[in-house]
């Protein structure tokens, strides 16, 4: 944290809130919109206080209409605003998938730059909070396959704030995935002054030489915990699209062993992309198979079984041990 002056410790919700507040204060074109983001402050309270501070013109309570909300944001962006949309849970982003893929991602290309789409779509993401069905999705891989979109996943209050600031300032559409499990799990002191964390750069969360562990979001913390006994290099990707290929390859070249940890089902998950990148560009440096620790390829179970579904520390350690056996 490159700061001397600090504020009281923030959890991720508060960090996000302060990013929104500051960017709204800096740029009058930034508006926040979504279901219950206004008077109610959002179901996780990320937008709390914004309605009172900026009024209903800039903190816009919308009808229950995900496709329409994202579609409106696209139109607003085309007309000069910078909308930050909240989708209540990632399980409800699918109705807006068409707008994101068909329009948000392509407006710049379709109009050869005459129009652009500087929107941010924020949504709580991931399991581990014992919620009901469709409140625990982690389908980041879908969005990461779409050229024209960017995909960002913070892992701490500090990164959440700095990345959201960058996402809002980014001239292209950003899917901003907030790990629900982390919303209130970690507190951190934040710099008092303005800061932004550039998109597209991974963070080294722990340095080591024996094995590279790559993760993002809520699994990063399990990966860190699992890595404790090892001389592991732990990479926190932060941006999934475009991801920091350079950081991945550099670490793999150093250690020769890789474990990638993702919460989503294994097949066609984001870990597969990282693994494929390594298999293509760093294979001569590998001393062990590239292991993916991921959820099973099953429909996400309800709360009572969700822990069995997600990768646990034991699974991660097993994978680390496996790579170290080579």
């Amino acid at each position: 944290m490159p700061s001397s002056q600090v504020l009281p410790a923030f959890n991720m919700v508060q960090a996000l809130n302060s990013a929104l507040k500051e960017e709204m204060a800096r740029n009058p074109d930034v508006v926040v919109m979504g279901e219950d983001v206004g008077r109610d402050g959002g179901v996780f309270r990320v937008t709390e206080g914004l309605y009172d501070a900026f009024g209903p013109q800039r903190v816009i309570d919308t009808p229950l209409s995900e496709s329409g909300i994202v579609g409106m944001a696209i139109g607003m962006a085309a007309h000069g605003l910078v909308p930050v949309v909240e989708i209540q849970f990632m399980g409800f982003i699918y109705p807006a998938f068409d707008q994101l893929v068909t329009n948000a991602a392509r407006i710049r290309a379709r109009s050869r730059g005459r129009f652009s789409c500087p929107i941010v779509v924020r949504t709580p993401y991931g399991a581990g909070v014992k919620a009901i069905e469709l409140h625990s999705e982690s389908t980041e891989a879908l969005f990461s396959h779409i050229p024209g979109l960017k995909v960002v996943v913070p892992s701490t209050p500090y990164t959440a704030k700095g990345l959201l600031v960058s996402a809002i300032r980014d001239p292209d559409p950003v899917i901003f995935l907030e790990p629900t499990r982390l919303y209130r799990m970690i507190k951190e002191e934040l710099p008092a002054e303005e800061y932004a964390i550039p998109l597209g750069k991974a963070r080294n969360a722990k340095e080591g030489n024996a094995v590279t562990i790559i993760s993002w979001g809520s699994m990063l913390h399990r990966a860190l915990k699992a890595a404790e006994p090892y001389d592991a290099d732990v990479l926190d990707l932060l941006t999934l699209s475009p991801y920091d290929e350079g950081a991945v390859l550099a670490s793999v070249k150093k250690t020769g062993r890789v474990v990638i940890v993702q919460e989503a089902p294994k097949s066609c998950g984001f870990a597969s992309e990282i693994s494929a990148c390594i298999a293509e560009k760093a294979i001569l440096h590998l001393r062990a198979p590239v292991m993916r620790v991921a959820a099973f390829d099953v429909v996400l179970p309800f709360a009572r079984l969700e822990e069995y579904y997600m990768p646990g520390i034991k699974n991660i350690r097993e994978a680390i041990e496996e790579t170290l056996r080579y």
Partner: protein
Amino acid sequence: MPETVLDTFEIKRLDILDARGNADPALMPPLGGAEIKKMYEYLAIARTFDDRALSMQREGRIGTYASIRGQEASQVGSALAFDKKDLIFPSYRESGVFIARDYPLHMLFQFWSGDERGMKVPGDINIFPICISVSTHLPHAAGAAAAAVYKKEKTAVAAYFGDGATSKGDFHEGMNLAGVFNAPAVFICQNNQYAISMPRSRQTAAKTIAQKAVAYGFKGIQVDGNDVFAVYRATKEAVENAKAGGGPTLIECYTYRLSDHTTADDASRYRSREEVEYWLARDPIARLRLYMEKQGLSGGKYEEEVREKAESLVDDGIKKMEETGPAEPQDMFTYTYQGPTARLSAQIRSFSPGAV
């Protein structure tokens, strides 16, 4: 060639039972005393279930729960207008509908405790599992209704949803398709005035939900959703009309959600005490009770018996749910496909429940 009028539309509202327990005899549906008592008992079970679910949640014995308090008449009154073989597509706020269909209470508690076995709908109950993603079940209802026609069955299909749900594309597509296929579907909107914090007036600029049926070329009607007779009558007519080949109906049950949106919500952030009190005075169950008293349907120990029966049913449900315990972890592999794929079989072999 002046401006000409192509068509005109009237949106009506049906009220039968007033707040003092008087029913309009001209509109009163032909219900015998036993039927009215049955209605009342379901309402009582629904209320008891709801109360207990809320306290179970506070005690950490179940997860987040969506209360139906205030909406019991809308749910029970409409559900009872369907035949057993009619298929119902519910949302997450339809405990009263499940209860009116004699759904095992322990399974409802299972569902709300995060156990999908609660939605392994028994073979003799025709209700779809709870749909969490708002409005997405409306096209399902249109499809099931069209399939019933295809199979030459006299089956009606219902979809239940909220006022917020009417803003979604799938509300529109489901309603429009049902209209085009003249499907025997009844669309029942529980207009409880809020979608979480969003008041009905901010959900759509239309003054009623009922008038949205105009867009689909079939009938829409508003009923007093706290009036079990009006709800029942309007639904019964819609069901009969659907089965007679008359196509879909949209019913707006004008009611109120007396509790928070769910146990994770705090409604005092966005609505006034006075508003809630206004609606408390219009409690749908109290109103039927007054009617029954006036009609001599509830003398003696009746009230107490109903309450006891409701409580013991709910207690049994809780007991059974808590005795059942969680599912086997391996259970999560069983229902993704009919049989496990080769890839999944390998994953199953690698699974050790001792994980985490």
